[in-house]
């Protein structure tokens, strides 16, 4: 199995443009997450979904939107990119077990907003 795939691997984006980061998992996990990783700040949760059809806001949701139309896919959209959204974005998934579960991470998308 592939686990979690993310696309694109990297992208340079002009400020003001929109972009969708794709995330697909083949483990039939109910829960999915989007994080951003910035130097000195660790990983911060942007949005999450605990099952298909539902989403929730994380620590840093502003400027981002998500949808969860099915179990496998969890795209992250930047409607109008700004330079502060330059970051490495990670998608993760798990099957909820009351907080004990392991999260599985994708390889990441490096985004540079100019």
């Amino acid at each position, binding site marked *: 199995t592939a686990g979690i795939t993310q696309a694109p691997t990297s992208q340079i984006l002009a400020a003001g443009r929109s972009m969708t980061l794709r995330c697909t998992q083949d483990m039939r996990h109910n829960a999915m997450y989007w994080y951003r990783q910035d130097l000195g700040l*660790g990983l911060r949760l942007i949005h999450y979904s605990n099952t298909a059809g539902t989403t929730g806001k994380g620590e840093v949701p502003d400027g981002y939107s998500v949808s969860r139309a099915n179990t496998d896919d969890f795209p992250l959209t930047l409607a109008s990119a700004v330079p502060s959204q330059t970051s490495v974005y990670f998608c993760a998934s798990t099957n909820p077990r009351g907080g004990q579960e392991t999260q599985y991470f994708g390889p990441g998308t490096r985004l540079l907003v100019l």
Partner: protein
Amino acid sequence: AQSVTQLDSQVPVFEEAPVELRCNYSSSVSVYLFWYVQYPNQGLQLLLKYLSGSTLVKGINGFEAEFNKSQTSFHLRKPSVHISDTAEYFCAPETGTGFQKLVFGTGTRLLVSP
């Protein structure tokens, strides 16, 4: 709200030396505690986790961590490191709200040199 502190941003060490990476968390509620590792240009993967029971937890690649409730710490140790252990290590307590939301520390970069 749960918070976590990783006291060292970078730890340089020679190969075959012991190492300890420190992690302290806030103690508002009983938590599950995780250590994740990120090798260069990769996503995160689980190193070990404390759920309950024995306070000494063993993980992959010879790492172990000790849960200390009175000191609210969950320090990671390895008695003899290898060059291949060079990576970034993240401590992550679970917030304990039912649906898993990990709070990641800012990370400690372990640099192992020959």
